[in-house]
């Protein structure tokens, strides 16, 4: 069994940030997609719930998509 503790920690943080910002998962996926994300909407949702793993670059993109949408919402 492969263990990717960095990936899992990043995933945990992303899931928490996503829930804290109360984002709509479809809207988030579209934003992530517009930045070059290539995971599907369903994989993205599963990742945020901790049941799927994304590649490192996809994780970074999704982090930033959450960051940008979260900021948009605060304004």
């Amino acid at each position, binding site marked *: 069994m492969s263990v990717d503790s960095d990936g899992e920690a990043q995933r945990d943080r992303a899931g928490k940030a996503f829930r804290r910002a*109360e*984002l*709509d*998962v*479809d*809207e988030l*996926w*579209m934003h992530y*997609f*517009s*930045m*070059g994300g290539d995971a599907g*909407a369903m994989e993205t949702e599963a990742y945020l719930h901790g049941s799927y793993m994304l590649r*490192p*670059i996809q994780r*970074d*993109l999704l982090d*930033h998509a959450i*960051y*940008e949408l979260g900021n948009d*919402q605060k304004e």
Partner: protein
Amino acid sequence: MTRKQPVAAELPEIFARVTGLLLTEPVVDRAVTNIARATHQSLAGSVGAGVTLIDSEGRPTSTASTNSLVKEADRLQYELGDGPCLSAWASGQAVRVDDLREDQRWPEWSKAGGRLGLLSCISVPLLVPDLTGTGEPEPIGAMKVYSDQPHAFDERSEEVLSLLAGPAALILTNLQARERAARLSDILKDALHSRSAIDLAKGVLMERLHVTERGALQFMITRARTQGIALSRVAQGILDPTETDRTP
């Protein structure tokens, strides 16, 4: 959060439209007008029937009716913002008015309807089943039938009208999907534009800074966050340095 933009779930509609799976507007119009006509003919006492699509703000978006009397009664209702069709749509329940002269639920509309010679009516919601199969059916409009006699309709008429509303709702959903697809393809165009700019800028940086793909992305993300701008703007800046700040 009130802002909602269900995008990902509706992407299949765009492809359905592109591949011609969605019906065109004239086809839908004709089918719905036929249903209105069938309704009018199958309910004794009817002087006219109609179907109205209602958007989420309670505004009518398109209609089909058997005659101008129905059209006028509808117009009044949406102008007043009150009436049996709007109630049927909002509540998801059938609404029957046995005598407009005595009904107190929508006094203004009843008065106006009475002047048109309409004395009773039934409105049923147009319901489409929730696609995920978990939630409640969604009301997308109303179908109604009018009479110039009081007490023209009973429970049975209500049942017949509800039965006919089923196929009408399904056909109209197709039209709504088409409109959503048009709106969505604009959103998708923007997304694809930004996506390719970011991809290109990533490639430029990889070459220029001799970094990996992830390194290039992290470079752009850091810049976006320190400058407080969107990632797509950072990418534009890298691709067209004359427009914004200096690139590395």
